[in-house]
């Protein structure tokens, strides 16, 4: 059984209340940090833990905190990113629903470390029930003296507010989130300046994912060294994986980073294998934005070694044969799933969610969706495949925010790894309307890497 740091007490009845949470050791990290540590100590501890942002980009959290500008006379802000909208990801909703005080505790410690006196949790608007849960939990914490003026008599003041979004995936991007929190359209800002210098209300701001903030609690409680003992290499600690798709036991799992992908899919401790005895065809490992991989490439590296659930191992092989850990949205496809249809679905998503500010993304996402739609509905052309790859290439890297890349990668990777299936949709258009391409060779063992003789 892997060690759990965030979800250890998730099944304790009443853990969503202050009383039970506290009884199980809750808010110890606040006491420890505020009473015995300086703000620099906390930042240093988080740095030492090796914690990397759990929102998708994997940027070291401690480092991000140390970049925060501290000009005289300007407030600083911490904003928690609970916009969770990346298809395949549902860990933040889970955590907030069941153990909201963990997030609040993390927010207090992190705000203290950053010197923020007002912090916000930006929750996607659709999560109204979670907003109510958080508001109730904040009121409880405040009543117990963990929020508000002079917390625990330490002289530290903090107000924590929940802000609802309005229904826009792009508001997960940190500068769009800040715009949205300022009551504007969620158009990502053009960087620089970065939020660390000029973010919310033009003040220095840190934006962190729910899980990153929650992970600060065990780091402070048990110490950075304990935390860093878990995991593998530069992927320290544990990670919440949202597992969905055609598996026996979909749900949120806390894994120690470094678990083999194969074990994650097939062991009863996690996904429990494929549902209905079907075979594995493909996996999107880190939320819809990361490249999709066929069964053989997700399980093994091209060297023949096992692929592991870690930032590095999943990325091994780069675009050619790798993917990314991203937000940990692990979507499993069985042999009966149609990759063309799914790619079209994802392209539709990005088209729908593009903010429309910059031309390659605004126009390119719609173009890709239309081409994929026609491929899926039996009137595609072979040349469409190269067209899609080219359009994806024209978007990638040329946009204001990474949504452009996020829209391009799923399309480019699907065509890269499942080209036969796309071609079959063109050559057997009628048949493709009636049945799926199936597993084909996508789970075949990888060919042995040829050893190139040194000359």
């Amino acid at each position, binding site marked *: 059984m892997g060690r759990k740091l965030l979800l250890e007490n998730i099944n304790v009845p009443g853990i969503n209340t202050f009383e039970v949470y506290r009884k199980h050791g809750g808010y110890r990290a606040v006491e420890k940090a505020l009473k015995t540590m300086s703000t620099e100590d906390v930042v240093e501890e988080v740095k030492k833990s090796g914690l990397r942002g759990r929102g998708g980009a994997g940027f070291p959290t401690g480092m991000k905190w140390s970049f925060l500008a501290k000009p005289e006379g300007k407030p600083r802000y911490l904003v928690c990113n609970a916009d969770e909208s990346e298809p395949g990801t549902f860990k933040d909703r889970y955590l907030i629903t069941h153990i909201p005080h963990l997030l609040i505790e993390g927010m207090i410690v992190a705000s203290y470390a950053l010197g923020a006196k007002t912090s916000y949790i930006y929750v996607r608007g659709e999560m109204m029930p979670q907003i109510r849960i958080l508001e109730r939990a904040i009121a409880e914490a405040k009543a117990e003296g963990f929020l508000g003026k002079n917390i625990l008599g330490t002289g530290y003041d903090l107000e924590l507010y929940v802000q609802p979004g309005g229904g826009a995936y792009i508001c997960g991007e940190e500068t769009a989130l800040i715009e949205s929190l300022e009551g504007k359209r969620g158009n990502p800002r*053009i960087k620089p300046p970065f939020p660390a210098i000029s973010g919310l209300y033009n003040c220095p701001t840190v934006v962190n994912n729910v899980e990153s903030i929650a992970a600060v609690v065990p780091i402070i409680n048990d110490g950075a060294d304990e935390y860093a003992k878990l995991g593998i290499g530069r992927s320290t600690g544990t990670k919440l994986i949202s597992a969905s798709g055609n598996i026996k036991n979909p749900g949120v799992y806390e894994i120690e980073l470094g678990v083999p992908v194969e074990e994650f899919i097939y062991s009863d401790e996690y996904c429990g294998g494929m549902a209905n005895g079907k075979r594995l065809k493909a996996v999107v490992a880190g939320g819809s934005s990361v490249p999709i991989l066929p069964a053989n490439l997700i399980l093994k590296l091209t060297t023949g070694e096992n692929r592991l659930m870690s930032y590095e191992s999943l990325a091994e092989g780069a675009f050619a044969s790798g993917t990314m850990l991203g937000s940990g949205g692990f979507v499993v496809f069985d042999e009966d799933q149609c990759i063309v249809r799914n790619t079209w679905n994802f392209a539709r998503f990005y088209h*729908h*969610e593009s*903010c*429309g*500010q*910059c031309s390659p993304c605004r*126009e*390119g996402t719609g*173009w890709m969706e239309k081409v994929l739609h026609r491929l899926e509905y039996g009137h595609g052309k072979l040349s469409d495949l190269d067209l899609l790859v080219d359009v994806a290439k024209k978007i990638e890297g040329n946009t204001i925010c990474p949504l452009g890349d996020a829209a391009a990668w799923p399309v480019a990777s699907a065509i890269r790894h499942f080209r036969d299936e796309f071609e079959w949709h063109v050559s057997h258009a009628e048949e493709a309307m009636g049945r799926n391409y199936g597993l084909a060779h996508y789970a075949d063992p990888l060919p042995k890497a040829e050893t190139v003789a040194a000359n």
Partner: protein
Amino acid sequence: MSERVKVTIDGISIEVDAGTTILNAARLIGGDIVPPAMCYYSKLEGSGGKCRTCLVKVSKGSDKDPRPMPKLIASCRTGVMDGMEVQNITSPEVMEARKGIVEMLLINHPLDCPICDQAGECKLQDLSYEHGSEATRYEFERRTFDKIDIGDKIQLHMTRCILCYRCVYVADQLTDQREHGILGRGDAAEISTYIEKAIDNDFSGNVIDVCPVGALTDKTFRFKNRVWFTKPVDAHCDCDKCSGKVTLWYKGEEVLRVTARKDVNGEVESFICNTCRFERKNTSEWTIEGPRKISHHSVISSNHYELLDPPAVIRKNPALKEANIEEFERVTRHY
């Protein structure tokens, strides 16, 4: 005196004030190496960064940190650093990306140039001549909108809009009550007034001049005409609202329309008021200064276009040739 920094663009070096953007540094150099800008407008705060036509490659970040930037960047929103080296038309990567962006801008554009008022002074038309490919690869229905009137002086032809946001900035920064804005999201976004409210304000007419395409046009433009058949003349008047410095567009003896004067970058020299623009259409109301020089870049003066690609440009221009000897040799070796 503010600090000066040195930047090199396509092999040509210049010293500029620290904080200058790459685009403005390039404009100081001038000529072919200036990246095209469809959304940036130096007189509108916050503009730029959106259209992506001005993307360039930073091959050396600065003397201090010489690493190249990993991605192409928007030259209109990126400041120069001392020792920075930038490639615009000498980078095949930039030219390829720009071609892609122009294609994107055109896929939903009606390409109704023959009937568009802006034809001849449209930045998008210029761009597509320079960077577009001949045939479109877009085989779907184009997005269309109905034409609407914004008040009795301005017409909005949203179908042509490229969502550069310039007109929104004008309304925000030049007028006290912005009535129009961007509604919707993604490629369903549109410039609109939501409920048909007239834009009525002394300086609202400037949206026409800043619009890079023919989306916002002057309804008082008499006897619609191709601009290249009209004769531009600089004139001024004693106006209590604006500088009164304008360009009058004549056909024969008649003033067809009044616009602000545009500089070499296609930007207005100074914004003008609605009275000058819409009401003063008699020669007698103006002091004529003389014929307007039209920049060599415009279709109005050249009437035709050659395809520009980096080697061709370098081949023609001795300064660039000199500055890019290596590059030039590499691309001409095959000829």
